[in-house]
Structure formats: structure tokens, C-alpha cells
């Protein structure tokens, strides 16, 4: 709730506060106090947060900002104060982040709203919200807990906000998935959402992307990979769905193993573990999703580790992927 202030707001208790847990009090005159939002008052040595005003009755939160709740006599001064906590609350309410559905109505000029799930940063001019976009909150991928599979001479850099996977050697001629995978970090998670971009990309199938790996499941060591590459001539982009029976052995996927796709600044991918089925989704904006497949959980392999890979096969240049978002829900 918005932290409010008013000038010269002073009154006295019209009745004693007889317990340290009372959640309301009455004053002789509330006219100079704010009438909405929250504000702070001091009674004797106690700071109280007033959360609602009804006539001359304040709804109060006791013992705020490290002060001790105490009883107060009728006639004690009730002084509206600008406090450290009040200033902090005021700042916290100025630039707000929440899910889009909880965006407050416009009406407080100068506020910013940063949706945790949305497309736009918004500015409140006091009458309406103004949108700036496209914008997407990113959740930095974990910086620990990744497991290498077939690292070779590939490297990983944890920048704090991204994970950068890189294969420095040019001219590889056989498939070699360099994968960084992890078991689910969030117990019971059913969706893994990732976004990545490329610093260097090659032409073989696929070059880099998201992978799901079977460890001790129905097909131990198998990978299912969703990845991207550029076409050999470099004139268009492809997305590939590819199976690997090991990090160095590809298998074709019935039905689909390659499609052109619209190159995105960020590639958004989502693996959904939906009980007996697993689904793969992709998005151009990280908000609206298109389902690409929906198959049995044990189809080809039963994934228990998830992550990112690069395959430097046929790379004429260094191949590098930056993972910028990783979220398990």
C-alpha cells in the first residue's frame, strides 16, 4: 500500500491503549492525517503504522521499526512522523514489480511497474500507464550445480547473470555434444523454461540449444535435443529436434528433424513434464507459447537431467551459446 505523509498532523489519544497488542486506537481529531494508504505515528516511544482510518479510529500495527509496543495513557500525543521505515516504504512503492494481473490502477504519478511475467515496463503519469517494450524479466541461470557431459575442450563461464558455453576448436567433423546438464533443482518442478542467444553459430544439425538427458531411465545416456543452426549457405535459420544415443551419435527423429525458424534475439524454449507426457514448447517473446510436441514421457528416452549443449561439428568459427534465463516451476 502507498506510504502517505501529511504536514503538521498531531492529535492525542481519546482513550488509553491498554494492551501492547491492541490493533486500533481512537484519537480526538484525525482531520490533518492522511486518510488512505499507510502512515506512521509516534506515541510515547513507540512507532506505529496506521493502515486504515475510519473517522477518528486508526487501525494500527504495533511496535514498528524496532520500537517496543507499550501501553499508552489517554491524552498521550499522537504525532505523524517521517521515519526511516516510511521513507523506505515510499521508495519500495515507487518502482513496483508483481505479476501483470496485480498491476495497480494508474493514479500515482511517477511510478514504474515492472511485471514479473510481462512484456512491458510501464510508467504511471497519474492518469494512465504508458508501456515500454518489448521487455521481459529474466531469471539468471544457476551458477553452480551443472554437470559436464563430453566436455572435450569446451569451456563454461559463469558471469553471474549468464552461463556461457564455448567450443574454441574450429573444424570438428563428427558430432560431439558438449553438454551442461543438471537434475531438477526445484523438487516437483513440471516446467523448465530457458532462453538463450548465440555468440557464434555453425551450420550442422543442430548446433546449440536445449537438451534433456536420460540418466538411468529407459534409455540411459540418450539425449533429446532442441537446437538451432544456420543453413550451410548462411541465408536462413533452422530449428532441429534431434536424438542422440550418446554424446557422439545422432539418430534421426521420426516425423521431424529440421524446420526453418524465425531468428530471434532470444530463443525461448520450454520443457513441460506433464505426468505421463512430456511436451516441448517454444516462444518468440517468452510470454506466448506454441506447443511443438506432446509425447509419452518414455518416448525415446526418459529425461532426468536438463540443460544446454553446443555441437561444434562442421564449425567454421568458434561456437558459443549464452544462457540468459533458466526457471524451474
Amino acid at each position: 500500500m502507498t506510504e502517505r505523509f501529511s504536514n503538521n498532523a498531531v492529535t492525542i489519544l481519546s482513550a488509553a491503549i491498554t494492551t501492547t497488542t491492541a490493533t486500533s486506537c481512537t484519537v480526538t481529531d484525525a482531520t490533518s492525517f492522511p486518510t488512505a494508504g499507510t502512515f506512521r505515528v509516534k506515541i510515547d516511544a513507540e512507532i506505529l503504522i496506521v493502515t486504515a482510518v475510519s473517522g477518528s479510529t486508526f487501525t494500527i500495527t504495533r511496535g514498528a521499526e524496532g520500537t517496543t509496543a507499550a501501553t499508552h495513557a489517554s491524552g498521550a500525543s499522537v504525532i505523524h512522523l517521517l521515519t526511516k521505515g516510511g521513507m523506505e516504504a515510499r521508495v519500495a512503492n515507487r518502482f513496483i514489480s508483481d505479476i501483470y494481473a496485480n498491476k495497480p490502477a494508474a493514479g500515482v504519478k511517477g511510478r514504474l511497474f515492472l511485471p514479473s511475467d510481462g512484456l512491458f515496463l510501464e510508467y504511471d503519469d497519474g492518469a494512465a500507464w504508458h508501456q515500454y517494450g518489448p521487455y521481459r524479466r529474466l531469471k539468471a541461470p544457476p551458477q553452480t550445480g551443472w554437470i559436464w557431459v563430453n566436455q572435450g575442450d569446451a569451456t563454461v563461464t559463469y558471469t553471474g547473470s549468464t552461463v556461457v558455453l564455448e567450443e574454441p576448436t574450429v573444424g570438428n567433423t563428427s558430432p560431439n555434444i558438449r553438454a551442461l546438464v543438471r537434475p531438477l533443482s526445484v523438487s516437483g518442478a513440471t516446467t523448465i523454461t530457458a532462453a538463450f542467444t548465440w555468440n557464434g553459430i555453425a551450420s550442422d544439425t543442430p548446433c546449440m540449444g536445449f537438451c534433456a538427458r536420460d540418466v538411468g531411465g529407459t534409455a540411459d545416456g540418450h539425449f533429446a535435443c532442441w537446437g538451432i543452426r544456420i543453413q550451410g549457405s548462411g541465408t536462413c535459420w533452422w530449428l532441429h529436434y534431434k536424438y542422440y544415443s550418446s554424446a557422439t551419435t545422432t539418430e534421426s527423429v521420426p516425423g521431424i528433424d529440421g524446420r526453418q525458424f524465425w531468428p530471434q534475439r532470444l530463443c525461448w524454449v520450454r520443457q513441460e513434464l506433464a505426468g505421463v507426457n512430456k511436451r516441448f514448447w517454444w516462444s518468440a517473446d517468452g510470454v506466448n507459447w506454441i506447443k511443438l510436441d506432446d509425447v509419452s514421457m518414455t518416448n525415446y528416452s526418459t529425461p532426468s537431467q536438463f540443460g544446454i549443449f553446443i555441437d561444434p561439428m562442421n564449425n567454421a568459427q568458434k561456437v558459443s551459446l549464452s544462457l540468459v534465463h533458466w526457471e524451474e516451476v
Partner: protein
Amino acid sequence: MAELFQNLASTTLSGSIDNVITSIGVASAMGFTTGNFRILVDSEIMLVTGVSGTTFTVVRAQEGTSVTAHNSGATVAHVLTAGALDAHDQNDLAGYDLYANKPAAGTPGRIFLPSDGLFIERDNGSTWEKFGPIWPMIPPQSANFPTWVNQGTSTCIDNKGAVYLQAANSSNEQIRARLQAYPTPPFTVDMAFVVHVFPYSSPSMTAGLCIRDSVSGKFQCYGVGNTDLHIRGYNYSSATAASGGVTGWPGSGDNHQLEQNLIWVRYYDNGSNRVISISADGVTWQQMVSNSVTDYLTPNQIGFFANGLAGYYSSFPVDTGITVLHWSQH
């Protein structure tokens, strides 16, 4: 003007003032600031908007206080008031104005949001640091495009403030559009969108902006198309039948491949011509064509579309989506 604060600034009136005057003399202006600030004289709060020597230009009786006369020698104290805090927070933390009106840097921590693009900026105390690209956008609402054409099982939703249309896949050309009534010319529409597509088949158009004549059922479409994802302008004799590139469009309907996440199309009807332009940044526009307003069709509807054919492959059919982030008619 920015609300400013100064510690321990206090003086006295150098002469008595009545309850009307807006220019007051003080014994000394030393210690006071020069921007907007508040003073308390007796019980009246005043807003000082200018300082010249020992004269303050004031707005009287602020923040619910009463205007009164004051005696020479009355204390003039600079005070931090609720109104000053509000003014500071509302105006001075996050600024919102035309880029051309951006204030000079010098107040660290401020943010500036230009109403006409292309960066959010932060004042580091000596220069504005830019963060971008980010665009001021006017997201459309699905209700403003009430008419479906060829919906099938397609969906159109308002999601997180923008409109998302997902075209049901099909083995044939299927322009699936949401439309509104064609505005009265002259007008311009700027549209920005992203496309969610795995092109497998070869639709003439994949997604973008369209105009339509509801009498003949003809469409004219501008956006991206073909397996190679070209910027295109294409005519459709109906929602399910492409009939060639727009007259005069570079490359008989194709232009360049635009490897952008965000695609901008500008449609301008000046009453005699339709002028279609494309942009990669929403600021610099490249004109594609300027045709008569009766070229191919006489529109009475305008909107956006995606083509159900774009993502179709017999054993792996995928829908095609378009997120419309910006629709500005001006």
C-alpha cells in the same frame, strides 16, 4: 522544475507582506536553493519558484494551509513537507516527456522515459546513460479488433497487456485475421509485432498487418512470408487464396530478409495513396510502395493476421502465432 532541498536554510521577512503578494523580500537568501522549494512562514506553507537576490517568487497557501498576512521579521524556514516529497517523487525520480525535452544531466539516480523512444536513460550525475533499445508502445486490445475472419479453431487473447493471435494450422493457405473498421483517411497506423513460426510449407504471407474489403473478401497483407521469411507485401483474393505480390513491391512481393525479433510496419493512407513502410527500429522507415487507395481492393477493414499454413508439415503440424505489441493510429 525539480523540487530541491537544502539543510538549515532559514531567514526572516525583510518587510511585511499582505495575503496577496507573490514576491517577497527576505533578509538573506544565503543557504537557500534556487529551484522549487517550500518555506514555512508562520503557519503558511509557500512554494518558492524563483530566487533573485533577496526576493523570492512564491505561490501562496500550499498544501492546505491558509493565506495570511505576515509581519516584517517573521521567520522564513525552508521545510521538508509532504507536498515537496510528493512533487519530488512524482516528477523528479522518473521523468516522462519527449526526448527533445530531456533535462540536462546532473541529478544522479534519475530515470528518464522518452515518450518517443528509443532508450531508457539514467542520470549518473554528469551524463545520461542509455539502456535499450526499448520502445514506447501502445499495445492493442483484442476487443478493438472485434471481427474474426476465418477463425477456425484459432485463438486471440489479451496476454500481459498485448494481443496474441494463434492461427490454427492447416495444409492450405489460411489467413486468420482480427479486424476493425477502416478509419477515415488520412491516417497512419504503426504496428510492431513478433512472429512465432516454424515455416515448413510456403505460405505467401506468414503474419503481419492486413487490410480487407468485406464485400469482395479480398486482403492485402504486409509483413513476413515465404519459407525464407522475407519481408513481403501480398494480395489475397480471399482468406485462402494468394494472388501475387502487391503492385510495385520490390522483388514482386519480396524484399529483404529481416532478421529481427521485432518487425515494424507503417500503413499510411493519405486519401489518395496507400504508403507502406518497413522499419527495423521503429524510428527509421523504409518505404516499400505508394499505390492508389483503390489498388487491388477498396478496404473497409484493417487489422492483423497469421497464416495457418506457415507451420504446417503433414506429420508435424504446428500453429503460427503473432504477438502484436504496438498499434498506434495517428
